[in-house]
């Protein structure tokens, strides 16, 4: 049912009040002009720029308004529209607009004055870089849009706004570059977002989980970032970005597996070093998943694979350790995760104390007391370090790590190999919005491989990823051909 705006101001006031259930942050202010016209402004406290309201709206109205019809000539404001539906008024008020009612006029003027407290633009801590823009997204959608548009000053950059969440009415925005984006992918993204039917979206993680292809997979097929330059780069490759209000995390889709081992800095620095870093990340990804499991497997099943001198040292270290190697590995890995988790949550001052206690007590004391063996501490520490080299994958790495410890302790390398095969097959069978997730690797693509585990010099990266875009594929002219 549509609440129509009545001509009587008091009626409107009561209706608005009841619509907002008499909430305490609803402000209703009635005033009279010099020429005795009664007016009323409604807004939600803290959502608007009060200064502007007083100076540029109320003051000129009180002084100059003689005829209610002339109101548009008096107010110095760009964003004003008329409405006759109270529902619409209420919808706008919750986005920070002021509703202006005039006595004896069955219309309402909605003036957009939104202004609220925002966090300053900072460098995102999780994606710190040495070279490149230090800006990170903030919680405000408009600011975020500006940050992207500042990087792509192009009229083909399109933002399409949606409001989802039946109760929260969260504003989200789909960004893409018309002419580069693959229409099919865009259509698919829109379709999936339209299908969302949930009461609330509090973070872009909600959207991610609701629109991704494989919802029980450990690996996310949608990327997220806090950095506008990264988003701009993905848009230029033909991807679609989804910005969500109230969160600095922007989603990009479709995603390839190798994106997790790439970083924006790779493109800003020299290609050789970037290639080296990518190999390093792959290696540490592999290491952080498999190292404890491999260690357990070697120690309990394949002692013949360990060099003799190392084996003798290891055997010495294991003397008197009460647990089997599997249990030892489980315990230590679990404790490592414990230290990590409590370190994140605790206040900074206490956090460092926890890490010292963790390092000292669990490393030194446990070894000296003979509860765990020294090599195991080294292995777990190496694993932890390796894990931080590939931050986007941390979540899945940890789960897989426990799986591999189990497999290694159960049937050694045989089970580990089978497990690895299954994981790799799982990864390459995934699709992200109809695009093969493991794209330049399997199915292989010669052009795509130039920017995968290696990064070719920038002037050799002529084409966009073929799986994403088939028509407008060229990024630059081939400088080698004259």
């Amino acid at each position: 049912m549509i609440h129509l705006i009545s001509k009587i101001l008091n009626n409107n006031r009561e209706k608005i009040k009841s619509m907002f259930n008499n909430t305490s942050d609803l402000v209703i202010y009635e005033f009279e002009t010099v020429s005795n016209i009664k007016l009323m402004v409604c807004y939600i406290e803290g959502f608007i720029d009060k200064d502007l309201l007083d100076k540029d709206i109320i003051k000129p109205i009180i002084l100059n308004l003689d005829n209610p019809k002339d109101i548009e000539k008096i107010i110095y404001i760009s964003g004003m529209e008329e409405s006759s539906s109270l529902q619409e008024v209420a919808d706008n008020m919750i986005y920070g607009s002021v509703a202006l009612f005039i006595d004896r006029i069955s219309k309402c003027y909605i003036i957009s004055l939104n202004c609220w407290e925002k966090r300053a633009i900072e460098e995102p801590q999780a994606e710190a870089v040495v070279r490149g823009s230090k800006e990170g997204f903030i919680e405000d959608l408009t600011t975020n849009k500006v940050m992207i548009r500042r990087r792509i000053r192009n009229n083909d950059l399109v933002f399409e706004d949606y409001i989802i969440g039946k109760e929260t009415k969260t504003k989200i925005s789909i960004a893409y570059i018309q002419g580069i984006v693959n229409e099919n992918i865009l259509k698919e993204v829109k379709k999936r977002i339209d299908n969302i039917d949930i009461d609330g979206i509090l973070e872009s993680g909600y959207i991610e989980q609701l629109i991704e292809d494989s919802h029980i997979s450990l690996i996310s097929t949608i990327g997220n970032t806090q950095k506008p330059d990264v988003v701009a780069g993905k848009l230029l490759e033909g991807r679609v970005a989804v910005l969500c209000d109230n969160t600095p995390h922007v989603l990009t889709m479709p995603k390839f597996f190798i994106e997790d081992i790439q970083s924006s800095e790779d493109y800003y620095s020299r290609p050789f070093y970037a290639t080296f870093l990518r190999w390093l990340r792959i290696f540490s990804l592999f290491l952080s998943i498999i190292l404890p499991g491999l260690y357990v497997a070697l120690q309990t099943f394949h002692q013949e694979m360990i060099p003799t001198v190392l084996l003798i040292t290891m055997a010495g270290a294991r003397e008197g350790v009460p647990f089997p190697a599997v249990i030892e590995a489980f315990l230590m890995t679990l404790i490592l995760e414990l230290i990590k988790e409590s370190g994140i949550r605790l206040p900074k001052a206490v956090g460092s104390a926890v890490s010292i206690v963790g390092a000292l007590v669990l490393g030194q004391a446990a070894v000296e007391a003979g509860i765990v063996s020294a090599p195991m501490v080294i292995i777990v520490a190496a694993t932890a370090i390796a894990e931080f080299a590939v931050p986007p994958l941390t979540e899945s790495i940890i789960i897989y790590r426990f799986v591999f410890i189990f497999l290694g302790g159960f049937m050694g390398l045989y089970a580990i190999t089978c497990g690895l095969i299954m994981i790799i097959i799982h990864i390459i069978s995934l699709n992200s919005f109809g695009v093969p997730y493991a794209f330049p690797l399997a199915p292989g693509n010669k052009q795509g491989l130039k920017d995968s585990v290696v990064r070719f010099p920038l002037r050799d990266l002529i084409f966009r990823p073929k799986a994403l875009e088939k028509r407008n594929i060229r990024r630059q002219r081939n400088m080698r051909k004259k």
Partner: protein
Amino acid sequence: MENLENINKISTYQVILLIIIYRVTIAFTYLPVVNIPPGNQDIWITLLMSIPYTILLCVPLLYLGNKFSDYTLIEYTEKISGKIAGKVISIYYTGFLLLLSIINVATLVEILNSALFPETPTWITTIIMLITCVYIAYKGLKSIARGGEIFVPFILGVILLFIILGYNNYDFTVLLPVLKDSTFKELNIGAIDSGIKFSDIIILAMIPPYLERKEDLNKIYIKSIIYSIFIIILLVVATQAALGIEYAKHTNFPFFTFNRLINLYDFIQRIDVLSVVGWITGNVGKITGYLYFTSVAFSQTFDKNDNRPYIIPIAGIVFIATLLIKDRRSILSVGKVLQKTILITSTIALFVLPTITLVIYLFRKDKISNTNND
């Protein structure tokens, strides 16, 4: 969506990789060719000679594959030979694929049990293998083919790495004198023997409808034969040069034994674990392929649409059969029966039946092309 259109279509490159690895896996694991006649330093010549034989032997299969590129082997035999005869042949092929799956599983399990886990019961090793394979087979042909793109280069890389690292173990004089110790007859028998045992070509006969570019069938065929033979020759030569002719014949897993010899600067040593990982990977791929195509053959023989529901029952049969075989006798060291079975069944599957089908086709050509148009 345009990207989803060619689902279950696989590229030429992927098929070549798959066929190569299916063939090389056997050589990589237990290298049976060191025992084929003439059984001396001239085996690599035998292998080279087997190329034309393999091509000749598979002409009927290839011809039919090209003519009926929209159908699998099972489908076109039924089309050509009529309902009843077609069914019988289809059942034979299904059985053949099943037999090969069983042999592959049994072989791998035997290797694992004798080289890595002597005290573990057979059924554990078998079940782990089958779970992995069923999982992959469930993901469909596309995942198998894409997986090939990742794993095959890895396996071939492992093989190459071992061949390079073993450089100081080689004594190539064992390969001399060339062609002096073996008779022409022996060489030819060996060549035919290794040619006819290329049973993996049956996969190629099942694959045409899934191909992205059907006109590449001949190319795939020739390339996969030549590449795989060259890799096997590399394996044989390296193994013989490192172990000597006679010792290589005595070992059950000659290439593995050779890998165990590698010792560079006391630092690169004991790396045969990598070889085992390679084996397992290759065999998982191979068993998966056979399981998948057995289920396809089964579903097509009995006119079912979806092959997926049959993967698990077939894996179950393979499991039981493997246990029955494996708990009786070693099939590798007491391998005469195995080699004979493979030889006879693949001769029938790869040569005899396709020839019969081809003859029928040539006689009933007009009729069949008519039904095709309907």
